[in-house]
């Protein structure tokens, strides 16, 4: 019988299998790479110390600071005392347990899901975990990558393993491509997908994204897709590795190199693919030929419409489901929006280009192209937060920072920033933001703040116009 890509990665990482347990046998799964950051690790280290335990594989554990680092001048002290303590705690723990740390001032610092691939830690066929739900990002390389809670972080630190019940496999196949479709981006693909399957459509599953619509994407675009798998409720996202993947990996500082890498690539090619589409537990087809730019209107990532559409009526969105209707009403109230109003008539106050979803070099290049010779609307405050110091440097070498700054954007240091607002980058109550991040939950970007999820191109256009536009018309 054939196996899925996920089956193959799973099978090759089973350390121990419980037998004959009713309602599913848990497997002890080996973890090849453990990424940690300052917010979800302190309690895990405290637990280790309390029990006198060691970190089993410090050589497979990598740390950075991203969630609450300031994005302004880093030569100044961190003003927020609690954030400073968390960062200091991570520093101490990494020193004590011998873990490599990309500290706030490291030239490799950045959002954990941006630096993993950049450094070459993210490789096909690996199992990767991190105390952060957007770990699904790394699945773009054909790695099984998932977010875990702090107790599991402690478990992995101590044992390098994780107990898991095997998730099901859901395939989402994309026909058509967004290549040569200016104004449409990978973010629009994943937003429309979550709109289609719903935010719990992927519960208990690993999603494998397949088809022409995926194979024609760059790695930066694929990462945007896999990143938001968790917004569809999935345990992880996966894309089978191909030449695009291998090209990305070549020359990465911590990846294998030379002959060793080429041999490994041959092995990946022979092994890391789903044998037959019929191997999946469930399949969904998505047609990209009619995809248009997407904008979220509500307070979860399935509350999305085409930029050409109007704010939906709650009963229309709910399609007969009373609870969904109630939640749509609440969302409209929170977002201060009226049904029937065109998306293009919503005025915005802030623009945030950043996050592990959309702060890689290509994202910034896409947005900057649109900004050349244009300026940010006088009623909009716009900022760009590169995903990492490497992205920032690469953008600066290309003069992209100049384009942003000339247009009126604030050009910041790298971190999670206003995606979740743990640092000083937050929305004020009632402020409305076009954001390239991944979550539009109530209060996510600041108490009372209103988030619209969009692509980097749409965010740039919205900054200029002060409202959403059908950005396809700009090309």
């Amino acid at each position: 019988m054939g196996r899925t890509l996920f089956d193959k990665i799973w099978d090759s990482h089973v350390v121990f299998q419980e037998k004959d347990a009713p309602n599913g046998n848990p497997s002890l799964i080996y973890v090849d790479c453990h990424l940690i950051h300052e917010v979800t690790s302190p309690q895990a280290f405290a637990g280790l110390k309390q029990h006198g335990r060691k970190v089993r594989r410090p050589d497979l554990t990598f740390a950075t600071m991203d969630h609450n680092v300031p994005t302004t001048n880093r030569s100044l002290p961190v003003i927020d005392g609690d954030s400073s303590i968390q960062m200091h705690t991570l520093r101490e723990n990494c020193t004590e347990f011998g873990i490599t740390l990309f500290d706030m001032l490291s030239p490799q610092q950045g959002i954990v899901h941006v630096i993993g691939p950049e450094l070459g830690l993210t490789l096909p066929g690996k199992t990767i975990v991190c105390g952060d739900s957007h770990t699904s990002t790394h699945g773009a390389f054909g790695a099984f990558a998932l977010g875990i809670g702090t107790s599991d972080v402690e478990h992995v630190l101590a044992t390098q393993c994780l107990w898991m019940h095997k998730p099901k496999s859901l395939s989402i196949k994309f026909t058509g491509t967004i290549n040569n479709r200016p104004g449409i981006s990978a973010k629009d693909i994943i937003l429309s997908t979550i709109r289609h399957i719903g935010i719990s459509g992927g519960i208990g599953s690993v999603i494998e994204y397949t088809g022409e619509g995926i194979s024609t994407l760059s790695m930066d675009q694929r990462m945007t897709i896999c990143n938001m798998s968790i917004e569809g409720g999935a345990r992880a996202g996966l894309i089978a590795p191909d030449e695009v993947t291998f090209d990305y990996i070549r020359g990465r500082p911590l990846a294998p190199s030379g002959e060793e890498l080429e041999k490994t690539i041959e092995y990946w090619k022979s092994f890391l693919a789903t044998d037959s589409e019929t191997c999946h537990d469930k399949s969904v087809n998505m047609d990209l030929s009619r995809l248009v730019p997407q904008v979220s209107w509500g307070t979860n990532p399935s509350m999305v419409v085409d930029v050409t559409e109007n704010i939906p009526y709650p009963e229309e969105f709910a399609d007969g489901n009373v609870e969904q209707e109630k939640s749509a009403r609440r969302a409209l109230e929170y977002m201060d929006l009226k049904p029937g109003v065109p998306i293009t008539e919503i005025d915005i106050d802030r623009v945030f280009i950043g996050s592990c979803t959309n702060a890689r070099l290509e994202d910034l290049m896409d947005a900057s192209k649109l900004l050349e010779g244009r300026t940010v609307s006088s009623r909009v405050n716009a900022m760009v937060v590169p995903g990492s110091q490497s992205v920032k440097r690469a953008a600066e070498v290309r003069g992209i920072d100049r384009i942003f700054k000339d247009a009126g954007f604030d050009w910041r240091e790298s971190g999670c920033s206003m995606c979740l607002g743990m640092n000083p980058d937050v929305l004020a109550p009632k402020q409305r933001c076009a954001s390239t991040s991944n979550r539009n939950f109530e209060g996510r970007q600041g108490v009372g703040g209103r988030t619209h999820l969009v692509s980097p191109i749409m965010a740039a256009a919205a900054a200029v116009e002060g409202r959403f536009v059908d950005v396809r018309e700009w090309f």
Partner: protein
Amino acid sequence: MKSFKFICDKAIPLDMVNVDTDQIIPKQFLKMVKKEGYGEFLFYNWRYQNDGTLLTDFVLNDKRYSGRRILLTRDNFGSGSSREHAVWALRDFGITVLIAPSFADIFYNNCFKNGILPVQLERQNVEFLFKNSENEDIVVDLDKQKVVCCDHSFSFLINEFHKRMLMQGLDEIGLTLELESAIVDYESKRRNHSSA
């Protein structure tokens, strides 16, 4: 870890779908380095006004429900961020059992590490509990895998591993460390194959 076997209590009805962990514990409370002390911040933005006074129309602030240890809610509870702080906040507030038609995966897993039982019931049975739990006791028996209310009994599924963890209050890491030889074997097998 604290064990859990059985409870008989009335429920707090949180009649909402897709309650995400950003709501359960907002980001400003993720800056602590301890595992305790999150209870007062549970559902902070829904429980308090900007000046810190209680919002009276939120169920957790309703005096009728104070002290109840079962939280009854709707589909996809605990979605979004992996923050275990959400579970710590529920636990510190006094919640021991959650009942819903479905839970988000990471959140569901996190519950078992902290002595909280998430019970997944059929949608119509959750509806029944919403109609009756205001004044009626709910019995949750983990060993028998049953929820009983007003002479109605509903079975629920739970895998044996999670059940044992909760019933016995086991230290999962301690258990895994007993499999040290299997881990060592796996690592050496992988080392031998890594050149392949």
